[in-house]
């Protein structure tokens, strides 16, 4: 399959899928399915941001379908903490941290305004901070 993405972009997409699903196997399947679905359409986008927004939105959609919200406390590392977040906050913060898109494009890909993205990120950071303490993670680096 010929995809217009670098390995670095695919890696970032995989991180996004992992943070959404909380499971490595599910993340791989979601990303593969999203690539298969988006591949025929990617050529119609002239800007890389649009291509990435297309596949980002598809990964999010398929992650929603793949499973219910990943159970908090299950899995390993950073994904376990992200599982404590509501889906909207999880998608917003995962989208920001994967660094695939500028904030404005990320907001568009998530179909929200930049202001709403800011509010979601504020709430997500606060919730993730509390979750880290509750889960007793000494540090995120060690959690991985």
């Amino acid at each position: 399959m010929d995809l217009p993405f670098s390995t670095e972009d695919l890696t970032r997409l995989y991180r996004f899928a992992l943070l959404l699903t909380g499971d490595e196997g599910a993340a791989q399947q979601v990303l593969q399915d999203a690539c298969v679905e988006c591949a025929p359409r990617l050529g119609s986008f002239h800007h890389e941001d649009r291509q990435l927004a297309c596949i980002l939105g598809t990964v999010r959609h398929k992650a929603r379908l793949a499973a219910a919200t990943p159970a908090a406390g299950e899995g390993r590392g950073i994904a376990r903490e992200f599982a404590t977040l509501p889906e909207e906050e999880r998608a917003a913060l995962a989208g920001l941290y994967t660094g695939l898109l500028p904030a404005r494009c990320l907001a568009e890909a998530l179909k929200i305004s930049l202001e709403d993205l800011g509010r979601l990120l504020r709430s997500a950071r606060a919730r993730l901070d509390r979750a880290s303490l509750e889960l007793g993670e000494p540090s995120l680096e060690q959690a991985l």
Partner: protein
Amino acid sequence: MKSEDSAIFVQCHCAGLPGTEDPRVAKAVRAAGKDIGQKAALARQQAFDARQLSAIEQVMLPPALLARLAATPAPGARPLSGKAALLQPVVIAIAIGAAVLIGWAGVSLWNRAHTFPGKDNVIRMVEMIDGMNGTEMLPKNDTAANLKDWFLVKYGLDDYFVPAGFENYQAAGARLFKQDEEPVAQVAIPDHNMIFFSFKAADFGVTLPNDEWHTFKDGPWVAAVQQHDDECFMVTFRGSSGDMDSLLQGKGGVK
């Protein structure tokens, strides 16, 4: 930019990532850097993000997934929904072609069902009416059936024939004319402005099942022809096939 707005947009900032590319985010970050309260909050946010990013960046793309993506054949066009599939140009072209064929077949079948040997000669009789001015006929005041004796006496025509149901129409005029040297009896009927024709089937090559009506349109005219043994009778008037069907049904002539 208001302090509250700035605090919101700062949340979209993540050091080292493209979040600051949006002007509003970049402006909010600059404003936060100048505000003591926001500056501390921004520093905490950046430290928090740095810890998260450090963990996330440890996650690498599984080589097996990369290999699977490379090995997956390029998918074709997306499967189309039923409606979208029907709107494809190829499907539309096929549908149009099928419609034309069906229409052509329908017209052919209709023509076959409504044609008969000698029809061209009969049509010429109908079209000849348009060239008449009314003076060609001799005035008559009798029923169509009773004109049999008149045609026999005046013209020596002994093949005049009027089928059941049409005998009692009152005639206003009648004549005998020759088409291709063969005699044709013609009677004008004021009712419905009908014209009756009677002629020998063999003279004009007409061959029809006995006592069976065949209807056809010719311009504004509609006509129905019936053969009875060697004689033919035709009734015509300006109207539609439906008008003729109604007339013949009243005579018990249409199946």
